[in-house]
């Protein structure tokens, strides 16, 4: 067992306090400390029981106490921020799916029902709607950070490639999710977006047919977009985030390019 964090250890004696009396005052006779100890012990037993079987604590420790390069700053948190945005989108999306109906005649009404009638519906839908924008902004900032820090270079090229695929998938989430409210704006934006796909030579028209499920915006287009938005693309994103994180954990992060590790030593040599 690793040492307990400070807030779980028994409180130290107050300076000047006499034997027995801890900072809770003299009246509880250390009962508070005793309860605390029992609570800690029960928690430690439960955690220990799981850890004995899963052995995650060495992994956790290796991750949490790993060495990071000098110059690691808030810029290095943009990837985690994007991950947080994705998780928030996943959770709000799952709950929105409980009320949303992907049927051309019901979609708009069910979205309006979520906004106007469901308890906290406007808030959860708003989080999902604005969270999508936040996620796209964060993923671009993250990409910019990696680019300007030169962090895509050897041996991290594959991390970059997977990241680019994740960027495209995130944009696909934006595209497919945009149709789901099924108002005039969604409908025509999707018509335009699908026709943009169609403008690609040779395979473009087939891609558009795949997205629409036919040559016209039809009965299955909305459910196709819903399935892509709900299952296919998020599944791929989750798998690729796993690969991306594995590579980050394995290869470590990079120092900013302006930080020259051996500059001082070199200067000294010159003198």
């Amino acid at each position, binding site marked *: 067992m690793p040492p307990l964090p400070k807030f779980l250890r028994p409180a130290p004696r107050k300076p000047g306090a006499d034997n027995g009396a801890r900072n809770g005052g003299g009246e509880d006779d250390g009962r508070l400390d005793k309860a605390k100890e029992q609570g800690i012990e029960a928690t430690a037993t439960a955690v220990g029981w799981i850890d004995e079987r899963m052995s995650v604590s060495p992994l956790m420790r290796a991750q949490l106490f790993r060495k990071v390069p000098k110059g690691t700053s808030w810029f290095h948190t943009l990837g985690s921020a994007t991950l947080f945005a994705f998780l928030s989108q996943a959770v709000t999306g799952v709950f929105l799916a409980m009320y949303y109906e992907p049927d*051309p*005649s019901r979609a708009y009404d069910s979205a309006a029902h979520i906004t106007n009638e469901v308890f906290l519906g406007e808030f959860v839908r708003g989080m999902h709607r604005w969270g999508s924008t936040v996620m796209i902004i964060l993923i671009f900032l993250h990409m910019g950070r990696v680019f300007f820090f030169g962090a895509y270079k050897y041996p991290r090229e594959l991390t970059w490639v997977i990241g680019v695929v994740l960027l495209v998938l995130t944009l696909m989430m934006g595209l497919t999710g945009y149709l789901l409210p099924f108002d005039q704006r969604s*409908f*025509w934006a999707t*018509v*335009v977006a*699908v*026709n*943009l796909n*169609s*403008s690609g*030579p*040779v395979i*473009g*028209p*087939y891609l*558009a*047919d*795949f997205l*629409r*499920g*036919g*040559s*016209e*915006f*039809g*009965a*299955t287009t909305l459910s196709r977009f819903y399935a892509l938005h709900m299952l296919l693309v998020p599944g791929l994103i989750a798998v690729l985030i796993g690969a991306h994180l594995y590579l980050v954990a394995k290869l470590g992060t990079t120092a900013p390019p302006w930080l020259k590790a051996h500059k001082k030593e070199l200067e000294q040599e010159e003198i």
Partner: protein
Amino acid sequence: MPDSSSKKPARKSPYTADRGIPGAFEGETVTRRNFMTGGALAAGGIATAAFALPALGFALGPLFEDSQPERWQDVGSESEFNDETYVSSVINLVPEIGEPGKTTVYIRRVNPDLDGDTQAIKDQPYVVISTRCMHLGCPVRYIQASARFVCPCHGGVYDFEGKVEGGPPVRPLDRFYTRTRAGRVEVGDRFSVNSELERFSPRDPSNWVDGLWQYIYPSRPTI
């Protein structure tokens, strides 16, 4: 192999019996370990293909089906239309989805003085112009005062015949086949036209059909 004059390391015999593997058969070349590995991979591959290929076909099926069955829709009696200007009407392209499946069309009788002798009006009593913009599919509107079709999205402008006059559209507005039955005008399937107003199978907006472009943006099984 005892021949040591060669610099390359001696190659193993392909026969398991020569390699001294216990229980080897005469003439056997595949070790049981390799056979089991191959068998497990093949079984896994077949099992995966057994669900993945049908699922893929299921998702891609609509690419190979004609999604627009032939359908003639009555849009009014012949007396409602003239050969001077367009009259708008609403037809149902995808009846299953209700309101989003409807579209506006502009209808006028063929006027030999205006239409000349193009292929688009051959055997057609009426000209029915689709309102789907040929840039990216926004709905165009006929402006009576200028006798032009104008798209609100990116400024595409088409003349009275639907030919591109300005903006990003890549070809003239699509049309629909027409016929008359007992004094009623009926509107049928969509067709696309190139800049010479020659007929083509319906293509998506943004797809050129002039010259070689018709092969770069091919006709598909769905249309």
